[in-house]
């Protein structure tokens, strides 16, 4: 396989579609495995992507997940058409959540989503404003002193 080739793509995410929730992250995981990316990087990218995907499905009508992979890094951008986040600092606190009860009953809304994305990324950036949706950008650097 040609590892020098850059690969990119996108998944459309539909809010409320819990049946397929996680499918985009699973697909990305397979793409990274086929490319031969080291398991520890795949795991971090998968977890960060899954949390971002779940946020779109839980809180917004729709969103787009874009990925961009080369020899240096995995870049993931998740842009949604949701209500936006009023207080990003508060949303970044572990345990803080605005999730309704029905979301918690499904095992989500523990207030760990954004912290989990940050934990698994080397670069994490979130842009959001009420009424303007949210964009999360994450970068995971590959080959930090080791072969992938």
């Amino acid at each position: 396989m040609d590892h020098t080739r850059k690969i990119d793509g996108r998944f459309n995410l539909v809010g409320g579609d819990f049946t397929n929730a996680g499918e985009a992250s699973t697909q990305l995981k397979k793409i990274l495995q086929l490319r031969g990316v080291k398991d520890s990087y795949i795991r971090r990218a998968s977890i960060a992507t899954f949390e971002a995907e779940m946020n779109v499905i839980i809180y917004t009508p729709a969103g787009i997940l874009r990925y961009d992979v080369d020899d240096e890094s995995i870049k993931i951008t998740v842009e949604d058409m949701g209500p936006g986040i009023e207080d990003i600092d508060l949303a970044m606190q572990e345990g803080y959540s605005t999730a309704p009860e029905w979301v918690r009953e499904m095992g989500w809304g523990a207030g760990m989503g954004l912290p989990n994305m940050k934990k698994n990324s080397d670069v994490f950036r979130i842009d959001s404003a009420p009424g303007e949706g949210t964009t999360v950008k994450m970068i995971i650097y590959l080959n930090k002193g080791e072969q992938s």
Partner: protein
Amino acid sequence: MKLQKIIDTLEAVTLDSTTNTGLEVGWACATDLMSEVLYYAHENSLLLTGLVKPQVIRTAEIADIRVVVFTRGKEPDTETISLAKRKGITLLVTPLSLFTASGRLFSAGLQCCPYT
């Protein structure tokens, strides 16, 4: 810890006759919160949970969890079972509570996923 020992310790039944009972499980975590699984669980872990939803299988797949144990005798629906089968994740059901099941596995030597 071998999967067969886990099955015996938890008085559990497996939901798939093709289960590899020789599978070695490294760690365990017990929670109903999926983000906690994603935050703390290590690969090759076992998840004990009272939550019986397809989301548990999706989460397990992303977190590289090989075995999910449903507590208090709760059986997942066919959608959850077939999803787990497709993803190669072993499902067990134990009549024990989450607390008792965790205690038994801990006493038998299975450790909590270390925090990183």
